[in-house]
């Protein structure tokens, strides 16, 4: 009795609804309470007990329609086989059902064969033919072929009708397999693709993947935001704040009725981000900015700067425009030039050094390739001394640091942390570390 529902849960998981075992038990109980008779009530009961957000409700809704329409019986084919053929040995069950045009029997046989072939395990579209074949065989295809061969000798007219019926049956099975593929494989394929994108190099991304990447970045940022945007004061239960406790209880002659506990403050980071937007690093810069601006609730203050030849502040653009448009705007106004780190640092020194305080974290994203200009490490040294932390993210592989015009190794000693950052996964790790650090 529960089997169809359990399969439905699996299909729903594929469609992106998270269902834990406990929830599936609840759903079963809910379905028991409302019964199967009323379709709307069944749908409502499932939606109430399984889906936990509006998006999940929509996904579940679509899945419900797809799944429970698949279970309905297919339509009758237009033409029934012409005439009952002369008896020829013992025709198989399938042949008889086809001859009689018995759709109910065919559907039942198809469902049974699909079950036996483990159709709900289907994951990839390349498996469609294989599964269709297996189901047909399970239904007794071989016997049917033999019967048709025998028939064609005796009654060619009837055999042709049989051939048509067989082709129609093949279509039906294929359709069934396709529907199941949609039901059960969606989640898996998406997961595989996302996993690959998380580990893909940011500089070598396909243009058509950009939209999907943005979705992933937003999801990552949301997760981090939920974790770190919480109240920043946490009571430290173990340690009594004796001074405060005594003061607070002075009214009771110092008898400590109300206790005060020591509290730990977690500071939200104040961030200044310097992004190299010259051709070589632009892709990585885009994702870093996207990430940081999706995070803004977990940060107390963020200022962004972009540079290639010279440096400008881009906070205004990022705050007023939609993030995708903003990044396009930044790229248009300053990006894709050849980078000059010395000049960019000098610009920063002249305009914004005063804003760097003891509580600021400075984040620089760049490959450190300054086209043989003066690297101005002295300015970087001063930034490092003023700021709480100075983090350098480099999208290049560690082995190529210091080669050619790369000044990375000369900058490295003044930074609190230098790390390679060329995939979304690494980016996420750096940002998580940034948020988790205690002030």
């Amino acid at each position, binding site marked *: 009795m529960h089997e169809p529902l359990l399969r439905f849960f699996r299909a729903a998981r594929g469609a992106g609804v998270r269902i834990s075992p406990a929830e599936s038990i*609840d759903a079963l109980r809910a379905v028991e309470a409302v019964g199967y008779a009323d379709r709307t009530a069944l749908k409502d009961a499932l939606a109430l007990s399984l889906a*936990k957000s509006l998006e999940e409700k929509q996904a579940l809704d679509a899945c419900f329609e797809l799944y429970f329409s698949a279970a309905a019986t297919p339509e009758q084919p237009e033409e029934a086989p012409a005439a009952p053929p002369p008896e020829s040995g013992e025709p198989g069950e399938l042949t008889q059902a086809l001859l009689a045009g018995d759709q109910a029997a065919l559907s039942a046989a198809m469902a049974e064969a699909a079950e036996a072939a483990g159709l709900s395990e289907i994951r990839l579209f390349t498996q469609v033919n294989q599964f269709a074949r297996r189901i047909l065989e399970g239904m007794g295809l071989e016997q049917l072929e033999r019967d048709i061969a025998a028939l064609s000798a005796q009654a060619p007219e009837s055999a042709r009708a049989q051939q048509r019926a067989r082709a129609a049956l093949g279509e039906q099975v294929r359709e069934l397999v396709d529907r199941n593929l949609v039901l059960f494989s969606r989640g898996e394929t998406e997961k595989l693709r996302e996993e690959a994108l998380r580990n893909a190099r940011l500089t070598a991304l396909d243009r058509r993947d950009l939209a999907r990447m943005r979705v992933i970045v937003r999801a990552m940022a949301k997760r981090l935001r939920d974790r770190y945007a919480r109240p920043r004061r946490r009571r430290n239960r173990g340690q009594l704040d004796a001074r405060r406790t005594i003061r607070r209880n002075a009214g009771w002659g110092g008898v400590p009725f109300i206790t005060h506990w020591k509290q730990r403050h977690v500071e939200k980071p104040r961030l200044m981000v310097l992004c190299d937007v010259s051709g070589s690093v632009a892709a990585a810069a885009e994702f870093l900015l996207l990430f940081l601006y999706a995070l803004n609730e977990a940060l107390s203050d963020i200022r962004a700067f972009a540079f290639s030849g010279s440096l400008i502040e881009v906070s205004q653009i990022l705050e007023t425009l939609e993030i995708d448009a903003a990044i396009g705007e930044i790229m248009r106004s300053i990006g894709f030039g050849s980078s000059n780190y010395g000049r960019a640092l000098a610009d920063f020194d002249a305009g914004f050094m005063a804003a760097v305080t003891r509580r600021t974290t400075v984040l620089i994203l760049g490959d450190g390739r300054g086209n043989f200009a003066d690297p101005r490490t002295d300015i970087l040294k001063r930034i490092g001394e003023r700021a709480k932390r100075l983090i350098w993210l480099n999208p290049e592989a560690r082995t190529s640091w210091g080669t050619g015009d790369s000044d990375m190794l000369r900058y490295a000693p003044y930074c609190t942390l230098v790390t390679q950052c060329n995939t979304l996964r690494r980016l996420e790790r750096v940002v998580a570390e940034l948020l988790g650090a205690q002030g």
Partner: protein
Amino acid sequence: MTARTDTLVTSIEAVEQGLGAAGYIASRQIATAVFLAERLEKPILVEGPAGVGKTELAKALASWLGLKLIRMQCYEGLDESKALYEWKYGKQLLYTQILKDKLGEVLGHADTLAGALRQLHSFGDIFYSEEFLEPRPLLQALQQPKGCVLLIDEVDKSEQEFEAFLLELLSDYQATIPEIGCIAAIVPPIVILTSNAGRDLGDALKRRCLHLHIGFPEARLESRIIETRVPGIEAVLRQQIVGFVQLLRKLDLKKLPSVSETIDWARALLLLHVTSLETEMVRDTLNLLLKYEADMQAAAIQVPDLVARAGRAGS
């Protein structure tokens, strides 16, 4: 649940009618949620925009079932001493004073220190006992002999720690007080939590609840709601009002008008003796529907068009 709720909540249709009798026109989904909540003894988490009747559902449910409604409004900084229980410090203090005076009498027979201690141990420890317990809403809900409807309003306003604290109550209908132990509900209350999606609630909390999303109602349902809440209004005007609000919700506004605003507006129009929507009148009363200046300006331009379309829909 109690025998009483069992006899009332017999089917989804019964819930629909019962809530209707209490003045709450429920959609089919809402009725299913209430039915399941009673059958599975699970709390309902109601989400949706402000003013679609989330809190109202709890009130109507309580009045239909004839149960007491215990309401707990959540806010930032809410903790267990305000939600669950508090000790009556003053009385405890008095108790220690009395004890001091009576100590001689109580321990009078003992002549050694060990004997006095034994004597002392033989008294129950009533300093931390239910006598000195001040029950707050959650504990009150557990102590109701006939059960109750517990409304935990705007749970998204509270902190994550408080949410975790609620879990025990929601799944087992019991609460733990460290000094006393576990207090289980006499009759499990029907719990309704509401949230305006101010923040995302934890998965653990969502998992323990039936998740009900109440959106803006469709025209027919809204018309029925207006009919029950504003009884004096004429059918034609009612249709026009609902049609107008439905159209207004399709505009790109900061805050869309919800059912409570439609009801307010209908009441106002009734007081003004309006018989049919007119552009001037609508513009003057638009502030009942829209709460932002920018929204009002954006909508004011479109009023003549919307009124005409709503009029056509109404007739």
